[in-house]
């Protein structure tokens, strides 16, 4: 385990070095994502300024929701940048490189690329957190841990949907669609959704686990709920590993030209 962590750290170092080769482009992408998030943010500020509250959420909870989601999503794709590209790798037969090296394929693939856009998410998450005004150590630790668990869930969901490519050929669109749906639903107060939709948000598209649940954990300091979130993250990661490893037996390679960026 320790040697795998050391290896992943080495990959992350290399990813940062690779991203730094194009500093201007890197900064522009990160700033672009920051602005993109900011537009949503401004919308909610204007909304709550007019209406005050929405299904139990005030602007303070929205700041916290944004902070956790953008930190979680940012961490997920900053470190495991290939999480939402698994379907492409499988469909185009680009796993050969990973299969010829003596490392587990899934972590090696996940951590082999850093998405520069997500630096914008990370920095946005930190700034959003400043808006919450929660500077006590407990809240900071709970927010950080919840964001890390949200990151694991994001990676797992992308990984599971992407691995469907082993079975259905091309799962790029479904990964994109369901990934976007998860992010979009998670950015709204959970009280807006009832019945079947709410069930979906706790199962098939687990948006609640990356938004509403972590917000409740930080707000209430409920460690039991944090434990449940950790269990959900562990189930997600296990499921992703099983779906990927089982699918890998069906991998057909291909003649596409690869480049490690």
């Amino acid at each position: 385990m320790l040697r795998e962590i050391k290896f992943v750290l080495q990959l992350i170092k290399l990813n940062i070095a690779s991203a730094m080769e194009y500093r201007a482009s890197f900064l522009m992408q990160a700033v672009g994502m920051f602005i993109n998030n900011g537009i949503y943010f401004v919308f909610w500020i204007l909304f709550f300024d007019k209406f005050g509250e929405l299904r139990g959420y005030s602007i303070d909870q929205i700041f916290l929701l944004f902070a956790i989601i953008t930190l979680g999503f940012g961490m997920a794709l900053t470190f495991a940048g290939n999480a939402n590209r698994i379907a492409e790798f499988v469909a185009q037969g680009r796993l050969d490189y990973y299969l010829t090296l003596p490392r587990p394929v899934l972590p090696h693939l996940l951590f082999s690329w850093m998405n520069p856009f997500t630096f914008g998410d990370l920095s946005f998450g930190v700034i959003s957190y400043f808006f919450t005004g929660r500077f006590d150590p407990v809240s900071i630790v709970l927010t950080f841990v919840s964001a890390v668990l949200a990151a694991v869930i994001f990676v797992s969901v992308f990984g599971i949907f992407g691995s469907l490519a082993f079975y259905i050929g091309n799962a790029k669109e479904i990964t994109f669609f369901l990934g976007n749906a998860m992010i979009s639903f998670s950015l709204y107060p959970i009280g807006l959704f009832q019945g079947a939709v709410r069930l979906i948000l706790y199962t098939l598209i687990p948006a609640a686990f990356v938004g509403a649940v972590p917000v409740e954990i930080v707000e209430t300091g409920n460690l039991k709920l944090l434990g449940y979130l950790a269990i959900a993250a562990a189930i997600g990661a296990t499921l992703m590993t099983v779906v990927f490893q089982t699918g890998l037996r069906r991998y057909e390679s291909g003649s596409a030209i690869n480049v490690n960026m």
Partner: protein
Amino acid sequence: MQAVRLHNLKKTFKLKRKAPGLMGSIRSLYKPEWNTVEAVKGISLEIEQGELLAFIGPNGAGKSTTIKMLTGILHPSEGEAEVLGYVPYKQRQQLAYHIGAIFGQKPQLWYHLPPIDTFELFAHIYELDYTAYQKRRDFLVEALQIQDFLETPVRKLSLGQRMRCEIASSLLHAPKILFLDEPTIGLDVIAKQHLREAIKTLHEEENLTIFLTSHDVGDVEALCKRVVIINHGQVIFDDKTSALKRQYLTHKIIGVRFGREIPEDFSVRDAELLKRGTWGAKIRLDTSIRPVDDLIMALMSYAPVVDLTIEDPPMEEVIREIYTAQESIHLNHKEQQEVPA
């Protein structure tokens, strides 16, 4: 000691068939049709430790599929494979510590970073002791002459420079077998020459087993003592490179330059005139029809000979003949199968 042992290795792929156009796409949604393609149809092969073997064949012959099964990338549909005592598709990770693989069109080096950074990553991947890694790296840098561009981003290297760095990266862990799939693809003559020399040196100095696939017959001639030819997923030739030439070289190319001009109607009995110049000619002679000495005597009695060369036809031509012969056998076999009883 055997490095590779294959017994009746097979690989089939299921391919979806779709009629052209939009209607074809819609039809394939509710009534998909599948074809089974046998990419490798039962290859049996044994390779000794330290051999440098050429594994050649036309496009779609099954070369890359075989290499991918040997490196654990693909699971075979049937048959057995053992590489250095490991079953590749079951013990991929253990095997990977002892083999190196280079796929000409699938670079391992990180594109935006200098090769030295990928080397460092590979030292971590293979868990090399840092001092041992540095020593090994310095040796390979020297052997492959890559010191001048070790710190240049890969995207700025020429194809030849990049390929030498690729080879260095795949040899850092001192593998026992190196799989080279089209290593000289796209290289110019000089770069090819440099690469071949480097491969030869490393093979000789380290008793490295090399499994080489290439479309470039020059690679085979320059490097390999044994050649295995596959076509349609089956081995059609497995012998020494010299035997390949002997068995299929039924003719010679003879170049002659006379001491005087030759007439326009110059011709040669029982031989093919490939080219006729003012002072000489190039002749293709089937030695089973007319002996070489007989032709030479005839040429010398025709006019004073200033220069004379006798050459084997290029290896490329020999292999093309084998492919063509195999292709016609394959077609005949197919036609016979299609004739109703």
